[in-house]
């Protein structure tokens, strides 16, 4: 389990990265935290000709808040984000989800951008980005473009980023007054989720009716999915056990998970059903 031969470059400047990407395109791989890439190299599942190490690139790990929006550089370590008061205040869901990402040793190296670009089907951060309708900032020699998270995730290990593009920043915004939570079930602590749910809700302080509900699931599809039916079922209603159960049932109906050695399609649906109801219960019974 040793990586295959490759060439290595460690640029210090984003423009250099962009020029390397335009030169090498699909032959190259960006090395961010390496917590998914290096295992794949050790298993020789990937054979890139060039590894572009982003760890010396300056200005990619900034973390700022502007107009209530969290601007997070793609090289911010997951552990840094998890422990940042700014993140906790502006996008608590990010912190709630990060606690489920691997173990803290992994998060010490793993980056925000790395996880989003890798886009594993059960990864937590893509679910968060989808739920918070994050904006993904991509750069290439052709310039900068901003993609909505809903257009960014295109299936297992696939994003809308072109081979010569690099994700430089992600912008998370939590609607004012919204509560969020992240629930998942994994075989063991720190494993990939069998199913997971990111949930957001705003409750009308007067009527106690659920005004805005957003639900996104991970582990039940090729990538993160918004559960629009499940959202619609409860929006505008009181958070009664019955309403939450109906939302869970709707969620199970709108996904088509796959079966693997850890869980069947059927179980993943049932789990999602339960998790949606429990997540909604958690954020509506505070």
């Amino acid at each position, binding site marked *: 389990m040793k990586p295959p031969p490759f060439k290595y*470059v460690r640029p210090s400047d984003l423009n250099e990265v962009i020029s390397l990407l335009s030169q090498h395109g699909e032959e190259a791989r960006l090395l961010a935290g390496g917590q998914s890439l290096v295992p794949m190299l050790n298993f020789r599942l990937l054979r890139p000709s060039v590894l572009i190490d982003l760890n010396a690139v300056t200005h990619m790990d900034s973390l700022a808040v502007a107009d209530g929006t969290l601007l997070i550089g793609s090289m911010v370590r997951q552990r840094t984000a998890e422990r940042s008061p700014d993140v906790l205040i502006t996008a608590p869901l990010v912190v709630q989800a990060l606690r489920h990402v691997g173990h803290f040793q*992994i998060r010490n190296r793993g980056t925000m951008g790395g996880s989003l670009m890798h886009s594993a089907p059960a990864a937590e951060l893509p679910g968060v980005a989808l739920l918070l309708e994050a904006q993904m900032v991509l750069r290439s020699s052709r310039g900068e473009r901003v993609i909505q998270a809903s257009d960014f995730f295109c299936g297992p290990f696939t994003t809308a980023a072109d081979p010569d593009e690099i994700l430089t920043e992600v912008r998370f915004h939590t609607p004012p007054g919204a509560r969020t939570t992240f629930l998942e079930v994994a075989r063991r602590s720190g494993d990939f989720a069998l199913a997971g749910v990111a949930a957001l809700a705003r409750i009308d302080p007067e009527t106690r009716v659920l005004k805005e509900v957003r639900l996104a699931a991970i582990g039940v599809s090729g990538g993160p999915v918004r559960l629009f039916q499940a959202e619609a079922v409860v929006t505008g209603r009181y958070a009664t056990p019955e309403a939450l159960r109906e939302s869970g049932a709707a969620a199970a109906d709108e996904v088509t998970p796959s079966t693997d050695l850890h869980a069947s399609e059927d179980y993943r649906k049932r789990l999602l059903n339960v998790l949606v109801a429990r997540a909604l219960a958690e954020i509506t019974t505070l």
Partner: protein
Amino acid sequence: MIVTERAVSVSVNGATYARTIPVRLLLSDFIRNELGLTGTHLGCEHGVCGCCTILLDGQAVRSCLMFAVQADGHELITVEGLAPAPGQLHPLQEAFRQEHALQCGYCTPGFLTTLIPFLESNRDPSELEIRQALSGNLCRCTGYQNIVKAVQRAAREMRTVEPGR
């Protein structure tokens, strides 16, 4: 510059090592084979078992998930660098011995390096916090409970030694 070999200078346990190495050399192999510090073990080489955990600039990381060239200019501490002096043990190491928190000893260095920064950031951890902190390291011998007890003992010891912190 795109290269297949690269010169690195790494501080390990306070000593600086300069080497020219292939870029694909894993940090774990560099520590073990180039530097001869064989206390860092390999259990899975895909980031699950935690045997190869070291401290990189004070933080616990998997050395099998980094290339040695990435450690250039950084400070590493391995299990060999934990004891205060030869023939002595760090309070955590002593607690492991007292509580029988190791059997075959293979996973032990990874647990120790994981726990050092944990205990520095959490002086009085609960059992659940300890178990969460341990959950990224696999042990096949102990069933973990004596490791948990060792962490509790070490936390007590370390509070007594440095009560002001």
